[in-house]
């Protein structure tokens, strides 16, 4: 099929798809409603009566970028604590437990102070305090009804209960049978009205295991941590969201409470509910339950802005594992007028087997098994990075990948993308939007995120409109703006020790 025919074909379908999107905004407006409670909490409700179930997504506008100094990992640590219950859930005797928890905390703070002393640290005293701390911990633990909060949700049919902490935001979500709407409103509001941070120090150890799994024991995890610490010098995006080990092992329950008091305020939270629910009913329940959260001003945002990079940065990470290549370029945050242009570039480079990087590095040059360019790493809320990542085919080097990436970047900077490519991106974005509307949980996440980030869930649709307006000139202009050597950070995983010698013939166990 000739290019011309293909192009007109895609134009036609683009027109049809465009009509579909317009229709969807208006049909969505009929079934999607927003209400901001007096305390500032925003609720988005979208009706989808396909089955008697619903999903929700609670979005808290604080992520690891909000971790206080010396407390990296705190946003994530608090996320874990939000499963520990309340004064009525998770305890056999709250009053007695509170006394025990206070004792535990006082002991821990004394211990920590002693441990951190530069002069006059007393090992005996530390040993004694450690003993006391363990005893205090055991005492408090006696009152705990393990995981009662989760047990209620699961026992009532809750599905896929989980939470996530990113650099920008923290989210909590699950799905429930529709007749548990009120129970959900009760549980979710209680959890943020008066969370009890019980089992804090045990959970800190659990989180440390999470760090070992995701970062310490994984070559990719180790690389990403080093890469971000290299790409950023000032902004907290330089810190791992699970926390640096030394910070993580000295977080305290007092710190966590302070973090909660500052960031988990109604005006900093957005909730979306999608499914077999009636908006009026959700709003009434929201008033009743979430209306109890105290009204406090939205916390002040970060001051730190990443300064302009002065020269290329790079890091080589020696590893026993196979090579990996990653490079990134600073780009503005999601409110930048060119935000959609970055989406377009990323799609042209990476989406599917028609993408430039696949065709060039994987199919034609045969040097990579995976090669992608991606926008918005590690976050979106603050100036972030546009990254390139590749895994070389066995026998090829990361230097070859680097050269190939640079050629593709040069092509973006010096030659217009062709119309077919650009049209493909636009059509795909519209179709993907439609595909995303058919699932309660995915839709709840999207609505909450867009409502929180832009103050209007409709931006989910307008974002696609903005992408439709991206031109070839935009792509060249933006590529020339950010893809410069002095704006670049490179990380390479380099194999230091050859893989263990192949076992000879007959070499079994």
């Amino acid at each position: 099929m000739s290019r011309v025919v293909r192009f007109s074909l895609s134009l036609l379908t683009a027109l049809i798809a465009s009509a579909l999107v317009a229709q969807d905004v208006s049909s969505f407006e009929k079934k999607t409603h927003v209400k901001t409670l007096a305390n500032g909490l925003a609720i988005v409700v979208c009706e989808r009566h396909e089955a008697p179930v619903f999903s929700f997504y609670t979005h808290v506008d604080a992520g690891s970028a909000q971790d206080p100094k010396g407390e990296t990992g705190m946003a994530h640590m608090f996320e874990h604590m939000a499963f520990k219950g309340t004064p009525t859930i998770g305890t056999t005797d709250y009053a007695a437990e509170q006394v025990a928890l206070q004792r535990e905390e006082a002991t821990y703070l004394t211990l920590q102070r002693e441990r951190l002393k530069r002069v006059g640290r007393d090992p005996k005293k530390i040993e004694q305090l450690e003993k006391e701390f363990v005893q205090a911990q055991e005492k408090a633990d006696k009152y705990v009804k393990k995981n009662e909060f989760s047990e209620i949700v699961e026992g009532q049919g809750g599905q896929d209960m989980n939470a996530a902490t990113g650099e920008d935001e923290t989210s909590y979500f699950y799905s429930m049978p529709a007749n548990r709407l009120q129970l959900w409103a009760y549980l979710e509001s209680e959890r943020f009205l008066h969370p009890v941070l019980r089992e804090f120090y045990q959970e800190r150890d659990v989180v440390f295991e999470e760090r070992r799994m995701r970062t310490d024991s994984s070559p990719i995890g180790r690389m990403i941590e080093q890469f971000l610490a290299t790409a950023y010098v000032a902004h907290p995006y330089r810190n791992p969201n699970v926390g640096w080990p030394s910070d993580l092992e000295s977080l305290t329950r007092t710190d966590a409470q302070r973090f909660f008091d500052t960031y988990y305020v109604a005006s900093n939270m957005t909730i979306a509910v999608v499914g077999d629910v009636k908006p009026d009913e959700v709003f009434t329940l929201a008033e009743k339950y979430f209306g109890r959260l105290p009204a406090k001003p939205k916390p002040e945002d970060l001051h730190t802005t990443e300064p302009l990079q002065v020269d290329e940065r790079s890091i080589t990470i020696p590893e026993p594992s196979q090579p990996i290549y990653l490079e990134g370029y600073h780009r503005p945050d999601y409110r930048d007028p060119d935000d959609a242009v970055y989406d377009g570039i990323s799609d042209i480079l990476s989406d599917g087997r028609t993408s430039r990087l696949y065709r060039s590095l994987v199919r034609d040059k045969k040097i990579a098994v995976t090669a992608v360019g991606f926008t918005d790493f590690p976050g979106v809320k603050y100036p972030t990075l546009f990254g390139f990542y590749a895994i070389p085919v066995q026998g090829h080097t990361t230097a070859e990948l680097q050269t190939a990436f640079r050629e593709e970047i040069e092509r973006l900077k010096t030659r217009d993308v062709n119309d077919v490519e650009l049209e493909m991106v636009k059509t795909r974005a519209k179709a993907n939007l439609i595909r995303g509307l058919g699932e309660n949980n995915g839709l709840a996440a999207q609505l909450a995120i867009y409502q929180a980030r832009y103050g209007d869930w409709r931006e989910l649709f307008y974002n696609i409109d903005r992408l439709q307006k991206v031109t070839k000139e935009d792509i060249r202009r933006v590529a020339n703006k950010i893809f410069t050597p002095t704006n670049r950070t490179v990380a390479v995983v380099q194999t230091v020790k050859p893989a263990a010698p192949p076992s000879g013939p007959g070499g079994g166990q």
Partner: protein
Amino acid sequence: MRERIYTRNIPDPTSTPNSRVLAKCLLIGWIIVSACGLLLAQQGWQQVPIPPLSSFKPQEPTRIQLPNGMVIFLQEDHELPLISATTLIKGGSSSEPAQKVGLISIYASTWRTSGTEKKTGDQLDDELESIAAKIETGGGVDTTSINFNCLKQNFDQVFADYLDVLEHPVFLEEKIALTKRRLETAIARRNDEIDSIANREAAKLGYGKDSPYGREIEYWTVAAVTRQDLLDWHTRHFAANNIIFGIVGDFDSKQMESRLRQAFGSLPKATPYDPPKIPVVGPKPGVYLAEKTDVNQSEIAMIGVGIRRDNPDYFAVRVMNEIFGGGFSSRLFKNLRSKQALAYSVGGGIGAGYNHPGLIDISMGTKSGSTAKAIAGLYQQIQDLLKNPPDETELKQAKDSILNGFIFAYDSPDKILGEQLTYELYGYPKDFLERFRGAVEKVTSADVHRVARKYIDQSKLAVLVVGNPKDFDKPLEEFGPVTKLDISIPTAPPRPVAAGGGR
């Protein structure tokens, strides 16, 4: 009968322990007063009313069988202007030759990407991407598959391409080479991440290193696969009576049915697929160590033989799994994670396959320095499970989780379609899901205890540890003789003469 199962009202929880809490508060001194006030001001969660779940009769797909034996399921879903479909063809990696392990991977990756006589795969990529449609092929243990997904208005174009790929694949050498490069690279990297080692070695221990369920792709088995093998596979398996087709989306079933009859009615018939008989003997008990020096966490997995899903004990096993290692409220999670803080990732139970036994897989990740402690902890949990039946509270919690969440097994037309395709493939009754619900309701504490004892025997488990032994809290020999697994990546096959090496 079916209606009742789906429309059944879920009883409200009745207990009201709030009064007990209140009484206790009144007995203790002033410090509690504020807490009491708190309790009075709000009600406990049990006080929150739960109305009956509104009646819901999910729409079952229509099943038709063509004269040539092909089975078709149609499921209308008019919510969005989309249509998607999948074709399952019987026969997968469980019947690929041992010297050509990876054949199905290569087949699945090159079937669609090579395209047909009419259009190359690259041409298809261009055309489909320009209308945001997908046609993709896949391969699994028991089937190969080809599916599509498109906007409704592109159906004609996409379906024509789909049929062409389905019936006339060409398997281009260049795409075969591309896939082989990817597989060889994956082999070279298979020891980089700890979980990939653990998953692989667990399957090898559980099913045997030569079993189709446990064996690995190797450099020489990838090299041995030829284009002719792929063409032969297609010729052998592509026959109407080996195919199950399911379609879901925004269409009219009557019209679609005649369309499909026209498209598939003339497909040839062949001798029905005869699935391989694969014995599952289970692991050789003992402790196995795969050493990895660049980690500070051990991955531990206790492996044994599970059951098939058509086993009448499946329902009790499902409840047992929920109690033992299912969600946040399971024993493993509560005791080893929340209480002892030994793990972030912990869970497991008795696996159940549709046509062969799944594996018992009880696993956790723990810091190197608590490896022995974690193994002892897992043993303790297993012993507790075998010693006493669960109490009524635990049983109720587990059954409530399954039954109250049951609606999520059929809350969308495509999930229901997916279930029906699976039942058809493995010859399960089409009302298996409904039977499941009824059977779970009847499971007793004694049933749970009985199946735990019947299927789990600590002395028969293989204990796999992937980790860095120099940092372990105790040598693994504490738990019995240790077999060191050689995970180095061989470049040539072991010579058959040098037998005795393999297990």
